[in-house]
């Protein structure tokens, strides 16, 4: 059995508990940032407004917070690996070194026994990183794997998404009929996976399985049939011996672009999952790119422990051609099995299943 826990977030809205509470209270997680667009537009983002940390500081802090929730000295054991999930890394170091340099920084700072394993696979990176962690443990290559997801907002990112007309000029509304695009977000998330329950200071959940699939369709537009996501979730279900009926909650990718959310709705319907309570955390956290899969999985675990379904921020009316069961209000209900999905440029899709320890 592979356990996952010690879930940690450091973001513009605070730590994991802060985020959980704010989402439950339906508070907004994004704010209008003056003149951050290429032509001086003011886009809503979830950004650190005061004391903005640099990449390495943020990565360090989230690891240290995670370590407080796990066995002492875990990080420097021979049987421990650090996996980093990021799309752009630390751009202050120049483009060639942007991704390796923070890994080197953390390797030196924490005196790790192994150089960090770095995944850069667009916005599916976070979920893929957790899947990779589980795979390492299942194959007895490591006993413990810390997965860290970090991405920071920059002009590069804002102007890039803007050039694709992907950014909404309002707080984003995943799956909603009025959705117009994404809000960008930044922050760090971390989780610990292990073959042993004892490394966690509080009860973890189980990682049942995960997979990735490519749409084989277009490098930036999602498949109109949701083929990649459909196949990916199917593989994850089969690998975990779980049926759609067993799933209590889905944390979707839900970026709030017209095409992404439509694609996901189609994929979920093809799997007969349209009745399962579903949300996107991005209405609150913004789209945190390489950190998203880790931050949102951390939130899923928190929901499982609290037996609480959190509402999908910004959602009012069905905005996809096929229906989904979007969560509009906080609901207290037993959550045993949870599906997390992610998709990204390059046609990549990833998913994983979590389950409470029986």
């Amino acid at each position, binding site marked *: 059995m592979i356990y996952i826990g010690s879930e940690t977030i450091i973001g513009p809205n605070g730590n994991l508990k802060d985020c959980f509470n704010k989402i439950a209270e339906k508070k907004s997680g994004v704010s209008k940032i003056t003149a951050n667009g290429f032509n001086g537009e003011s886009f809503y983002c979830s950004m650190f407004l005061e004391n903005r940390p640099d990449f390495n500081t943020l990565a360090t802090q989230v690891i240290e917070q995670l370590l407080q929730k796990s066995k002492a000295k875990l990080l420097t054991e021979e049987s421990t690996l650090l996996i980093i999930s990021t799309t752009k890394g630390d751009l202050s170091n120049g483009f060639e070194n942007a991704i390796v340099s923070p890994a080197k920084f953390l390797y030196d700072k924490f005196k790790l026994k192994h150089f960090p394993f770095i995944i850069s696979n667009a916005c599916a990176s976070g979920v893929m990183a957790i899947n990779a962690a589980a795979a390492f443990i299942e194959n007895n290559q490591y006993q413990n794997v810390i997965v860290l997801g970090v991405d920071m907002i920059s002009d590069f990112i804002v102007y890039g998404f803007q*050039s*694709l*007309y992907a950014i909404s000029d309002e707080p984003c509304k995943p799956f909603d009929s009025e959705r117009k695009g994404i809000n960008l977000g930044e922050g760090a998330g971390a989780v610990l996976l292990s073959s042993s329950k004892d490394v966690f200071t509080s009860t973890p959940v189980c990682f049942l399985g995960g997979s990735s699939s490519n749409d084989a369709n*277009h490098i*930036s*537009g999602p498949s109109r049939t949701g083929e990649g996501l459909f196949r990916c979730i199917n593989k994850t279900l089969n690998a975990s011996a779980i049926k759609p009926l067993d799933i209590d909650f889905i944390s979707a990718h839900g970026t709030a672009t017209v095409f992404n959310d439509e694609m996901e709705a189609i994929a979920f319907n093809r799997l007969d999952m349209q009745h399962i309570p579903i949300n996107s955390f991005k209405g609150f956290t913004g789209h945190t790119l390489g950190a998203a899969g880790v931050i949102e999985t951390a939130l899923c675990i928190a929901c499982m422990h609290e037996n609480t379904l959190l509402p999908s921020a910004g959602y009012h009316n069905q905005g996809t051609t096929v229906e989904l069961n979007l969560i509009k209000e906080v609901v207290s209900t037993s959550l045993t099995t949870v599906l997390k999905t992610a998709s990204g440029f390059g046609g990549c899709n990833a998913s994983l299943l979590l389950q409470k320890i029986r």
Partner: protein
Amino acid sequence: MDNLKEELKKHLITQLNLENNTPADIKDEAPLFGDSGLGLDSIDALELIVLLDKHYHIKLTNPEEGKSVFYSINTMAEYIEKNKK
């Protein structure tokens, strides 16, 4: 108008990396998008918006408008004639 169309074809080839094509390959009335013709896609459509701004100072703020404007060289040229500054 003919000069504009020739110029447009050259800009198109540069902006969209159509290294395999010459202006002579691009017929004025042929559809630019879809399986026939140049087989342009949604990213190319966005690049055409950049092209309009860069070379003709026309800002197309709604990508949806692009479908009719960018249908062919003819429609592009007509639009530019009407809207250029």
